[in-house]
């Protein structure tokens, strides 16, 4: 942060702000925000919601965001019966005096004096006095609040990795940074309607997490956009995380054929054994599979009776026939195996028949096999604990919501379970704790909708905060479909444009002053503009998200072409092979 800025504040804050003055505070409250009367010469047309203003009062600097812009008049008659403004004199007199502009400012943060030249960003607990001058925030002021990209200490003295996520509106030279440590500390979310760039923004954030080593990622990549290659608006293809961070990102796949066809070069294929699937894994699919409560109950009943082979046996005609079929010894008639099985299980035959028809769908999923060649859970955990990030591609199964929900729930339940055990084992010993894990899920409302959120592992993780070092990174287009309790636990919300009123309301669930920000969110550009609020930023901010392009790859450490050769040469030289010729020369 520039010393010049602090010096300017210390010396003469008001004088320094004259040229940037917008108006003065005339009313307001801490809970409802501030009303600012614009000075006569301020053109309303050049203002925009989402911009920052500063208010110097009482030796402090209040930071606020413009959340609404309004036209006002000194008397209702000026609206009902407008004065004749054909003469320039009348315009000069009335505009700004009889009729005027007003902005609504939500106070977000205050720079408190800590000593000579030392200012500490604090939450706002009071408001500036009447008629305090309001000025446009300078790039230096905004930069001071958000800090520079890199590693620094946060306000609480902890190490923090700040990641450049975008630029504030109309401030091309200012970087808005996220505190990644805080971003992964609690569950976070990217919301936005379809086509606004959720995946692109999520890739950026995940790249930041990988680059800064703040956590390991497990990404359930529904549409194969994160691992090797993705699509984007401005170019036909963009690099996936594995291309940018080779050696640090592993691609697991449920559909090896699809992954190979796309050239994503998977590290491992995930298989799930029938015997590993438990009723809890299927229960959360009740909505998408149209399972009734009775059918869910029947699954548990079978599990109690048959143990871990319940599903395999239940779907196996041969097993049913062998164990429950045959011929009645007395009558000689053929025994209905399903009927006998239902009787044994204490369930109505019709219930089990309907359940079987639904569960038979699993047999068409190529990744569910009778005898998996590898323990995928252990394999994924090994990668994660080695600090490698895992992208699980779904291949053609990405279009099948049942497959996505089943696998995500199946893997997450078990990985979370291992994390819980590892964390409890390491109780009190920070060095023994497992690496912080961030699990990325798309279509999150399917996991977290009211009614099932309390039963799924994802609802549990969201509510636990960082207790077991596992947090969620939710990517979703329908925040209103997510359970309120879960929403209130989401630490950082990065929100792209949303249209639906309910979705907008949901984003601000549990956010102090959220109502004031609704106007800001409702007016985001439909592409690559995001409102970030919550745990990882000192105050809500609207950003033009940075580009995901070659410059970004390079900043993340990606090398290619000549640079790669040069790096290889350097390494050879370091290893004593410097005199060897380059392969391409």
């Amino acid at each position, binding site marked *: 942060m520039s010393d010049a800025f602090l010096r300017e504040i210390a010396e003469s804050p008001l004088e320094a702000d004259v040229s940037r003055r917008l108006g003065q505070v005339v009313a307001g409250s801490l809970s409802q925000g501030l009303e600012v009367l614009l000075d*006569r010469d301020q053109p309303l047309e050049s203002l925009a919601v989402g911009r920052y203003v500063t208010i110097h009062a009482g030796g402090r600097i209040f930071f606020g965001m413009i959340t609404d812009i309004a036209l006002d008049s*000194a*008397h209702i*008659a*000026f609206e009902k*019966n407008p*004065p004749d403004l054909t*003469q*320039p*004199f*009348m315009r*000069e*007199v*009335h505009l*700004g*005096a*009889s009729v005027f502009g007003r902005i609504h400012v939500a106070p977000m943060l205050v720079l408190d004096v800590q000593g000579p030249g030392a200012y500490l960003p604090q939450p706002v607990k009071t408001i500036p006095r009447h008629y305090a001058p309001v000025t446009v925030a300078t790039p230096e002021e905004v930069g001071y609040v958000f800090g520079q990209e890199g590693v620094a200490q946060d306000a609480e003295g902890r190490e923090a990795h700040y990641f450049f996520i975008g630029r504030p509106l109309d401030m091309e030279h200012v970087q808005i940074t996220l505190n990644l440590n805080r971003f992964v500390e609690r569950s976070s979310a990217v919301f936005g309607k379809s086509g606004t760039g959720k995946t692109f923004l999520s890739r950026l954030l995940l790249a930041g997490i990988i680059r800064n080593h703040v956590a390991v990622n497990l990404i359930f990549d529904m549409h194969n956009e994160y691992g090797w290659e993705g699509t984007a608006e401005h170019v036909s293809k963009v690099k996936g995380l594995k291309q940018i961070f080779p050696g640090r990102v592993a691609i697991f796949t449920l559909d090896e054929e699809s992954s190979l066809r796309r050239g994503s070069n998977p590290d491992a294929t995930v298989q799930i054994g029938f015997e590993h699937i438990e009723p809890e894994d299927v229960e959360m699919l009740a909505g998408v599979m149209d399972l009734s409560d009775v059918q869910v109950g029947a699954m548990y009943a079978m599990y109690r009776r048959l143990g871990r082979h319940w599903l395999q046996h239940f779907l196996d005609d041969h097993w049913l026939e062998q164990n429950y079929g045959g011929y009645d010894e007395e009558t000689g008639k053929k025994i209905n195996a399903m009927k006998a099985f239902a009787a044994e299980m204490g369930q109505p035959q019709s219930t089990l028949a309907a359940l079987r028809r639904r569960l038979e769908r699993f047999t068409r999923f190529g990744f569910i096999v009778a005898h998996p060649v590898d323990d995928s859970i252990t394999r994924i955990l090994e990668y994660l604990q080695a600090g490698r990030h895992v992208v699980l591609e779904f291949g053609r199964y990405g279009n099948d919501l049942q497959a996505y929900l089943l696998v995500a729930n199946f893997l997450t339940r078990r990985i979370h379970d291992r994390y819980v055990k590892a964390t409890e084992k390491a109780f009190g010993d920070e060095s023994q704790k497992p690496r912080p894990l961030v699990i990325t899920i798309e279509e999150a409302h399917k996991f977290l909708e009211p009614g099932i959120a309390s039963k799924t592992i994802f609802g549990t993780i969201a509510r636990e905060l960082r207790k077991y070092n596992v947090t969620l990174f939710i990517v979703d287009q329908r925040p209103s479909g997510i359970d309120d309790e879960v929403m209130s636990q989401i630490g950082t919300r990065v929100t792209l444009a949303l249209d639906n009123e309910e979705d907008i309301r949901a984003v601000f669930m549990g956010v102090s002053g959220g109502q004031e920000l609704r106007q800001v969110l409702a007016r985001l550009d439909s592409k690559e503009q995001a409102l970030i609020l919550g745990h990882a930023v000192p105050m809500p901010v609207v950003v033009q998200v940075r580009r995901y392009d070659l410059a970004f790859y390079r900043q993340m450490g990606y090398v290619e072409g000549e640079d790669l050769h040069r790096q290889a040469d350097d390494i050879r030289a370091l290893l004593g092979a410097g005199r060897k010729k380059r392969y391409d020369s």
Partner: protein
Amino acid sequence: MLGRILRSSTTRFTFGRTARGEDMPAFGDLVKAEQGGITLLGLVYEIAIADDPFVRQIVAASDTMAAERVEDMRQRRQVPVEVTALTIAFRQADRWVYGLPPRPPTALQPIWPCDCEEVRDVLADFAFFRRVLTCDACPAEELLAASVLRGAECQPPGQARPYLVRAGRTLARLLSHDPAQLDAILRRLAPVAEAYS
């Protein structure tokens, strides 16, 4: 000298004068009087010409009268022209105070016109607007418009229009509760302001 005080109070004063001479004050003019070392300033808001027995007789006696005789009767009236001014400020200890003086001018005190420099100096501050607007006995809109136009006349070259705009904005603030009255005054100022453009 414009005339002498006939009667006065702290809020206004009336002076009498002959109808002769070129220096007859006009509606909205700024005039001054001295009282005990204090200079009082007033805005002329009423100029009254009363009748007398001679005028009555002449008017009643004949429809046709020589022009010289009419002019003679006008000039040599037995009753003075009465001019009333609203007190808006007084000067005390070298500064203008926009309010009412401690005492009114006494009878027969002379009344003087204010020159342009004084007009510019006194009317630069629009604090007198409220005094005029709250005067029940005055035609407030007309008086304000006339006084502001008088103030504009006395501005240096190029400053008359900005002065009128400043005055207009002040009025807009003061009369925000009464857009009709505001409009009436601004309509008086606007043509003059545009002429200064």
